[in-house]
Structures are given as C-alpha cells and as structure tokens.
C-alpha cells in the first residue's frame, strides 16, 4: 500500500513534467497549471507517505529498476529519509501552490512551461536522492537534481546577473559532484559495494575511509553553501525565480545536509576531530553568513546569505552530534542531532516562506532592492503578516519554530560542560558565543528586512502602486506560516510524540502565558485607560510632511553593525588620477572607487580562475595552427618512445 503511494507520487511528478513540456510549444496555461497541480499533489502524497513511515518507524525498501544489469537503482526509506521526505514534500507542495499564481505573472512565454516541468523533475530528483538505497543511485539523482536546478537557475538567461550566477552555480555544482563522486568511489574501494552500510575499518582502509569522509564532507558543504564554498548561493538565488529560490534554499540545501547525516550515521564511525571540523565549519558559516546578510540590499541576496547562516546552524548541530557521540554522551548527542534535523525542517519552512513572500513583493514592486520598497504593510497586509511570521521565526523569536530548534542547539551547548576534554570545552564555549552573536545579528538582519520592505512610507513609485497578490500566492505561504507557528508552539509535544522527552521548556505553555498576559493587560487597560485615538503626522522636528527620502533606510539601519564588523567587510579603494603636467601637479581628471571587497571571491575563487586561464593560454599556444610544430610534436614523441624502449628493454 505504502509503496504504491510512493510510486503514484513519482508517476505524478513525471506526468507533471511531461504535461508541462508537451504544453511548451503552445505556451499553454492549462498545461502549466495542470503540471503544477500534479507537482503539488505528488508532493503532498510524498509528504503523507513519508509521514506514515516517520510515525510507524518501519522502513520501506523498494527496488526501482536496473539501468544496467547488476546496477540497481533502489530506494530505502527509513525514519531519517522519511523525515527529509516530509520536509521536501511539504515545502514543495506549498511552493507548487504558490507557483500556480506566480508563473502567470512571469515573463518568458513558453519558457514558463519548461520552468514548471523542470520544477517537477527537480523536486522528484531531490526526493529520490533522499530515498536512495545505494550510493550509485544517490549519485545518479544527485546529478539529476543538479542538472534540473541548473536549468531552473538559468530561467532568466538573458540577464547579465544570471549569466554570472549560472557560471558560478554550474562550476560549484560540478565541483560538489566531483567531491561526492570521489568520496563514493573511495568508499566503493574500501568496501567493495555501493551499499550505504557501515564500513568495517581495517588499518589498511582507515586513511581511505577518512579521505572518503573528507571528500564527501567537502562535496556536501559546497552544495549546502558552507563558507568558503558558499559563493554560488548569493548569486544563484537572486537570479532565479522566487519559487525556485524557495525550493533551492529551503529544500536542496537540506538534501546536502541529509547526505552528510546519512553518510555520517550509516557509513562512517566518526572521530572526534570530524565533529570539531563540522562544528567549526558550521560556526564560521553561521557568523559570516549573517554578517554578510546584514549588509545586503538585495532582498533575495539577503535571504541567500541568511540561508548560509542557517545551514551553519544545522552544521553546528551535526558537529555537536558527532562530538557528543564520540565522547559518549548519548542524550546530548540525540539532542544535537534532533536540533540539526528540526532546524533543517524549520529552515525549510520559514526560508521558503520568506522567499515566496519576497517573490510576491518583488512581483508587486518590480525591484529586488529593499531601498526602493517601504510602506508595503499597508498595501500588502496579508503578505506582510506572512513575511513577519517568517522573519520572526528566522530571528528565533519564541514561540515560533526557529526558536524551538535553536533552543535545542543552545541546550546542547549549555550542557556541553559535561564534556571531559577541557580543550573541547573551550572550543564549545567559543562556538557558543559566536552562535549567540549569530542569532542576535539575524534578529537585527530581519528587523532591517521587514522594516525596510514593509514599514514606513514607499520609497519608489512602484512601491507606491503595489497591491496585494492573488489567492494562490497567499495560500502557499500561508500554509508554511501556519506550519511555522504550529511547529513552534507544539514543539515540545511534537518531540514528545516521537518519543523524545527532553528537558526543554514547553512552548505551548509560554504561548498561552503570552496570550494570557497580553489579554490581562488589555482587560485591565480597557477599564482604566483612555480609549481615544487619533492619527497624525510623524514628528519631524517641526517640519511638515517630510519626504520619504528622509526615512532611515536599510542601508542606514545596518551601518552601525557594518562599522563594528568593518574588519570583515574589507573595502577596496581604487584611485586613478591623470595630470596635465609631467610633475603630477596639475590635476586633470580622475576616478575614485570604494567598494566592498568580496574576500572569498577575490582571494580564493578568482585567483584559481585566473590561474586556470593562464594555464589555458600557455597550452593554447601549443595549438598554434602551424603544421610544422604539430609534426615536431609527433617527432619528439616518437623519439621519446624510442628512448623509452632503449631504457625500458
């Protein structure tokens, strides 16, 4: 019965893709809608199916087919996989619902059909990565996911930004594949099979297995956007259509997290330093991610950097999990693992919610620059409320879900004093401090985002004209927002329902108390306070109706933090001057530029790219178009072979 649901879901995805592609020739709206409905239905089915497994806990295994005799693509869904399937299904369903409205507002004619079709394939590929039973089918769908998402990123291929994003994304994706493939091959060599099963360490295979872990870790980190492999995220997300960003940020990054978790738990027996490595990578990403996010003026860029931060938090959870399981603290390990998992789910929910509502905003204002927005709370009330839920959740405000998962991380951290090794303890404390910084900065970041987008007055004519979006584009995010609230408020009950009784506060009680206190105050004030209300101008030191340009902008908002962390945001100054005379005295003209130094781009990515280009230049000179040179190569090769023969014989 269950496997039937799974198969039906896959078929629905495939038919969704087929319908969309078939309708591409005629730019058919019906095909698009039908395809998205298929995707939504399939995702929902998938989520239900996975939820059943998650609850019952009895794993399901399915053999799909054999592309080559002996190489089988097979699925195995246990609780871990089911958890991620729930995540994928739930978010994808909401995104699909949203897309039914969104695609009709997009430019691009029949390309929109391709978008819908690729979305179906993309979601299917992600689901099947998670469901994969063998490393080879994992890799197969991993690549398929990469290809499909690449197509989606390239949707607005004519924009200059998209070209750049596409190149970054393509290269980083390939790099990720390289490492994952390397890891899988090394595992195959160490074990002789493609099964995702525990490796029995022998002294001979130990270095190989460690290398395999490192390769897989780097591969998954690239896909998850861990600093310093993060650069594709802030390019790809703004360039792609909002539902795609929501899927990529909300779901695809989690697939990488799933990969790391799956291999850590099912294949390797981790060492302590693996945990430390993951923890440090996670902390660095979390802190730097949010510091970069706060500086962004591009709403989707901001969300992208914030994704880096949240993936960092998830990695912190995983790192703690490894550290605690290596040091034998089972309860703490479980808490950390659940923190990572729960935060994955929560991040999927609120990040896709934020991307979708941001998409609505961008659609309404025709800009991604938050400095051009403002005043949308009055013009798009529902969207603003939905975005608010997302922002509050991501800023870890109780009693929402973002807080619930960060609470688990904190709990693990606070309890980490039990770890025996003092140096690990110190490391944990430092990470804790940075983690706290992250969480506070993320609150600041989303105050900035929400404030600049929705509050005060519009700062551009387009924002002035903005209006609320249609029901489909509200329904999808609304479900996600509801999920954020429910998962937060009932977090204790949900965890207890799955058998995890942790010493964490009951957020239901807290929310009841919050409501109670609010209501109590309200009632008291109702009887004691004046009820008179009036509307007036904002006070402007006596000036009448200041223009909206006098408002505090997002840029101004983040200025103090930017100044405080100025060592992170290195600026680069370039000055060129021209003089009339040869003594450089009489200044003729000049340019000066101060811009943000993109540290990783300019000191890591570009030097490598330049080195490759230089090597290519040298090698291209070999191919100089002259027959004599070519024949000389042959001659040299032949002489070398003859010499080799003389030596070897």
């Amino acid at each position, binding site marked *: 019965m269950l496997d039937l649901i799974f198969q039906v879901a896959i078929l629905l995805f495939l038919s969704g893709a087929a319908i969309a592609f078939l309708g591409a020739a005629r730019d058919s709206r019906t095909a698009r809608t039908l395809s998205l409905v298929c995707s939504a239905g399939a995702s929902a089915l998938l989520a239900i199916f996975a939820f059943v497994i998650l609850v019952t806990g009895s794993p399901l295994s399915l053999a799909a087919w054999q592309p080559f005799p002996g190489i089988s693509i097979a699925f195995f869904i246990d609780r871990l996989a089911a958890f991620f399937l729930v995540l994928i299904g739930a978010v994808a369903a909401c995104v699909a619902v949203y897309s039914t409205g969104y695609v009709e507002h997009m430019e691009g004619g029949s390309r929109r059909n391709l978008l819908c079709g690729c979305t179906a394939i993309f979601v299917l590929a992600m689901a099947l990565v998670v469901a994969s039973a063998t490393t080879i089918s994992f890799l197969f769908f991993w690549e398929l996911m990469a290809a499909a998402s690449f197509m989606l990123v390239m949707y607005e291929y004519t924009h200059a930004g998209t070209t750049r994003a596409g190149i970054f994304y393509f290269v980083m994706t390939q790099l990720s594949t390289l490492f994952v493939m390397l890891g899988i091959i090394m595992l195959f060599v160490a074990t002789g099979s493609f099964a995702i099963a525990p490796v029995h360490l022998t002294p001979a295979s130990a270095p190989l297995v460690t290398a395999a872990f490192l390769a897989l870790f780097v591969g998954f980190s690239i896909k998850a956007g861990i600093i310093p492999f993060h650069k594709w995220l802030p390019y790809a997300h703004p360039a792609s259509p909002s539902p795609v960003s929501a899927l990529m940020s909300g779901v695809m990054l989690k697939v990488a997290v799933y990969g790391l978790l799956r291999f850590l738990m099912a294949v390797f027996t981790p060492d302590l330093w693996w945990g430390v490595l993951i923890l440090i990578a996670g902390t660095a990403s979390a802190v730097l991610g949010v510091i970069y996010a706060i500086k962004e003026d591009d709403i989707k860029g901001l969300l992208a950097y914030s994704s880096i931060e949240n993936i960092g938090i998830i990695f912190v959870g995983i790192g703690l999990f490894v550290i605690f399981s290596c040091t034998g603290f089972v309860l703490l390990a479980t808490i950390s693992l659940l923190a990572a998992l729960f935060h994955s789910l929560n991040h999927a929910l609120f990040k896709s919610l934020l991307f979708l509502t941001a998409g609505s905003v961008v659609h309404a204002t025709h800009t991604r620059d938050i400095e051009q927005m403002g005043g949308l709370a009055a013009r798009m009330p529902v969207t603003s409320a939905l975005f608010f839920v997302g922002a509050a959740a991501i800023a870890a405000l109780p009693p929402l879900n973002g807080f619930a998962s960060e609470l688990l991380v904190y709990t693990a951290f606070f309890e980490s004093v039990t770890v025996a090794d003092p140096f690990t303890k110190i490391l944990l404390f430092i990470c804790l401090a940075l983690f706290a910084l992250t969480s506070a900065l993320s609150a600041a970041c989303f105050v900035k985002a929400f404030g600049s987008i929705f509050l005060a007055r519009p700062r551009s004519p387009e924002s002035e004209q903005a209006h609320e979006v249609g029901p489909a584009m509200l329904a999808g995010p609304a479900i996600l927002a509801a999920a954020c609230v429910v998962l937060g408020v009932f977090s204790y009950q949900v965890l207890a329902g799955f058998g995890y009784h942790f010493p964490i506060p009951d957020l239901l009680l807290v929310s009841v108390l919050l409501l109670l206190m609010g209501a109590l105050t309200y009632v008291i004030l109702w009887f004691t306070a004046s009820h008179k209300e009036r509307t007036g101008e904002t006070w402007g030191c006596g000036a009448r109706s200041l223009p909206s340009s006098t408002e505090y902008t997002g840029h101004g908002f983040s200025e103090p933090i930017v100044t405080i962390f100025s060592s992170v945001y290195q600026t680069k100054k370039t000055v060129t001057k021209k003089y009339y005379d040869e003594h450089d005295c009489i200044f003729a003209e000049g340019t000066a530029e101060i811009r943000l130094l993109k540290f990783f781009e300019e000191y890591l990515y570009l030097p490598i790219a330049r080195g490759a280009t230089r090597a290519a230049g040298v090698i291209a000179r070999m191919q100089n178009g002259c027959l004599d040179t070519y024949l000389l190569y*042959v001659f040299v090769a032949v*002489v070398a072979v003859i*010499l080799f*023969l*003389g030596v070897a*014989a």
Partner: protein
Amino acid sequence: MSDPAFFDGIVKILFVCVIVTSAYIITTKNLISLVRVYALQSLALMAIALSLAWYENSAILLAIAILTLVFKVILIPYFIATVQEKIRIKRDIEFHFLSPTSSLLISLALMIVIYITLSHVLSDTLAKGSLFFFGAVIGISLVLMGMMVTFSRKRAITKVLGYLSMENGVLLFGLFATELPFIIEFLIVIDLVILILLTTILTVGIDSTLEEYHNRLHRFYLWEEQEESP
C-alpha cells in the same frame, strides 16, 4: 650461387647511397633536384631488394623490387615533377626548427640511439652486427630523417617528399627485419599512391606552401591569386 661477401659489399654500398640521398633531401633547397634524389633513393632501394632477392632467391622480393621501380622510381617522381612545374616553385629556402647542419647532426645522433634501442629490442631475433640488423637500423633512421624533412621545411611539396622518404625507410626496415607477405606490401604502395595523389592535389589547391599562406593573404594578395590557379 650467391657469394655472401660480395653481397655484403654491394648492400653496404647501397646503404651508403640511401643515407647520402636522405641527407641530401634534408639539406637541399632545390626542389627539382629533390625529386630526382628521391627517385635515386628509390632506385637504391630497388637495388637492395634485387640483391636480397638474388641472395635469398625469393620471388616476393623480386616482385617488391619491380613494384618499387614502377611506382617509386618512375610514376611518383614524374607526377610530382609535373605538379611542381604547375605551381612554379623551384626552391624551398626556409628551414623551420632545424638548420641543415643541425639536422645532419641530429640524424647521426638518432642513428646511434636507434642502434642502441634496436640492439636491446631485437636481441632475440637478429644477431647484433649482422647486415640485417644494420639494415633495420638504417630503415628506421631513414624514417626519422624523412620525418625531419616534414617538419623542418616550409613547402608542402617538400613535406610530401619527406613522407615518401619515410615510407622508403619502412620498406627498408621491412626488407631487413622480416618478410612481409606481398599483398600487404602491394596494398601499402597503393595506399601511398592515393595518399600522394591527394596530398599533391591539395598542395596545388592551397598554395605552394602551407605556412606562408596566411601571411601572404594579407601582403601579396594579387600575386598569390595569380599563382594559385593551376
């Protein structure tokens, strides 16, 4: 009826002829004499084949000798000479990578290298120092010397001659290293003829040389147009 000593003497003289012709091909600038020298080299080769045939009493070798005479001494040189007249180029002055003297020195060095290598490789089958072993060395050296012509000379027609000289080297090597079936030898010659025909036609079609073509295209456009028409 064969006298080994006499045979040895004859063949050694012919070897010297082959090497000298090959050296001449590497160094000379006059195209017409190049063709003639090639014909001469082929003739020497034919003579070697004949003396081998006489020495070993082999009909196959005789047939090979006749084949060589017909194709390499008469038909191909004649054809190339005709083409040369059409493209009206008499000299190939420029050298690439190697000057005439350095190419001679390198050929000498190559011969030594090949001698050493072959003495390792062929140690099981051919006695070191025997005439047959020496023939094999000369053969491969000839191949490499021919190859040096192909890349050190500018004109495509010279390259063709270099290629032909390489092929002569293979023939020589084949004669002394082993006995190939006649059908193979025959097919190779046919292949050679087709290849030479096509290459030469293409050479006519493109220009007198390959490398100068790009430069000339810009500088002497008219002159080049006029020259190109066959």
